[in-house]
């Protein structure tokens, strides 16, 4: 069983991240996930988190207890959720939006929002992050992730979303490569 939390602020597509990963794992790969979400009353800007419990068998308890993967796309989310990450858990952050205040963990960082802006629209920062997340965690294959996208992002932006995913994925592979070297 794997427990994953995606976090940031409302409007970044945080809930969408868990929906894409959850659909890829359960619908595309035929296993089981339960996705839950928590957010404030604001439409945008409030702290926001989505959680995924993934398993080869049916998930009984729907909520995460101590996640092994934490994705943070805002400082507030990092400060709120980092202490709950498992001891040897994987922490993934947006390099420009989160300034970690402790170096005791291994941190994987990607300038997701900056890359998205370079691709023409910061709204796809979450897909850059999903690409990076897929490379680092190997939670599902990149092909499964891409198969999950139709229906979860507007059709007219599908290609742009694929591009964003690839950008993050390739960056993730590069980070892993460098990690191996050092």
């Amino acid at each position, binding site marked *: 069983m794997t427990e994953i939390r995606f976090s940031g602020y409302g409007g970044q597509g945080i809930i969408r991240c*868990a*929906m894409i990963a*959850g*659909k890829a794992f*359960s*619908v595309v790969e035929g296993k*089981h*996930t*339960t*996705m*839950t*979400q928590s957010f404030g009353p604001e439409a945008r800007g409030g702290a926001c988190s989505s959680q995924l419990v993934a398993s080869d068998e049916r*998930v*009984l*308890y*729907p*909520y995460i207890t101590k996640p092994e993967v934490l994705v943070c796309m805002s400082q507030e989310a990092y400060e709120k959720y980092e202490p709950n990450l498992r001891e040897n858990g994987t922490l993934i952050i947006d390099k420009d939006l989160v300034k970690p205040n402790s170096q005791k963990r291994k941190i994987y960082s990607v300038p997701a929002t900056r890359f998205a802006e370079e691709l023409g629209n910061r709204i796809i920062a979450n897909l850059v992050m999903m690409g990076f997340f897929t490379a680092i965690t190997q939670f599902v294959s990149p092909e499964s992730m891409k198969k*999950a996208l139709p229906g979860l992002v507007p059709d007219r932006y599908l290609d742009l979303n694929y591009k964003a995913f690839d950008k993050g994925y390739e960056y993730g592979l590069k980070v892993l490569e460098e990690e191996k070297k050092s």
Partner: protein
Amino acid sequence: MKKNKADPKGVLTGTHFLDGDFSLAEGALAAGCRFFGGYPITPSTETAERFSERIPRVGGVFIQMEDELGTMAVLIGASWAGKKAMSVTSGPGFSLMMENLGLACMLETPLVLANVQRGGPSTGLPTLTGQQDMMQARWGSHGDYEIIAISPDSPQECFDFTIEAFNLSEKYRVPVLVMTDECVGHMHEKVVIPPAEEIEVSERKLYKGPKDQYLPFKPDKDGIPPMVKAGDGYQFHVTGLTHDERGYPVINAECQDWCVRHLVDKIKNNADDIIQIEEDQTDSAEVVVVSYGISSRVAVRAVNKARKEGLKVGNLRLITVWPFPEKRIRKLAKDVKAFVFPEINYGQVVHELERCAGGQCKVVGVPHMGGGVHNPDDIYKVIKEAAK
């Protein structure tokens, strides 16, 4: 009972990643529901949202009503016009619907109402879970009546059980409540929607006799009166007042006796056909954990842990909460040491369990006030204590 294959127009065949709220709507559309009236309320709003997008595409009607009183009234009207009708709500809205829910029972009107429960009382916890409307589901409207309530524990079951709710409702001419909760409503999981030809849907019995001889409340041999569609040329009268077979008010004790017995007995006498429960290792059990809805998933974790330690623990899940599986509980109560009943409330359906156990074994509730689901360890501790 007439069973048909589902109309493919409403069936979104395929494997989806859906939340419970959306799945309620998809189940309804698959069952042939073509009328939705409602007043959106958290955490059930997504169901209304889904209906508003989907039902016009399959030839149905979506109306956002002025409030929940009007909502129940419009469902009754739509149902008497021949449509399968549904609404969805949560605690505060459920309270407002109680008066006309009683009218629907009195008029023997098939309809389905889902309650995506949140923590109460009053406005309570709009965005967090609860199972605190379970007794209201049974007794919320005034007077004596019987109702059917079923409780799904996953988005898949929100789909499956809503179809079942419509089938029971059409068969018994009674409102059926789908008692889900915020956790299931907002949780996304894989939902498999089968091809239309694999989905069986029931249709209400329609009266076929001479137009001037229709009696809207005259039971057939099976105890259920056939219906007609308003607008098809039949002249008939329905009223919330105590009425005879013709549907006209008769205000005396004899007619009240006939009327109320009929409303109650048509469900009571068919309890075996209506009630669905799931049992696992109850035959050899010393302790049986009884649960429904989201709590039944969490309970399995506690049961598994207890079994690992060698405790003889069975699991009994109420798919149908109302009517309550009285017969089965009475029988089990003779053989077990204790029942353990986790609910996300301060103890509601556990009282019914206690009544049916009749002092033959211990009955221990595991209350949770709402806002979240049980920690499986809390249920486990009670199982362990009860097994002593």
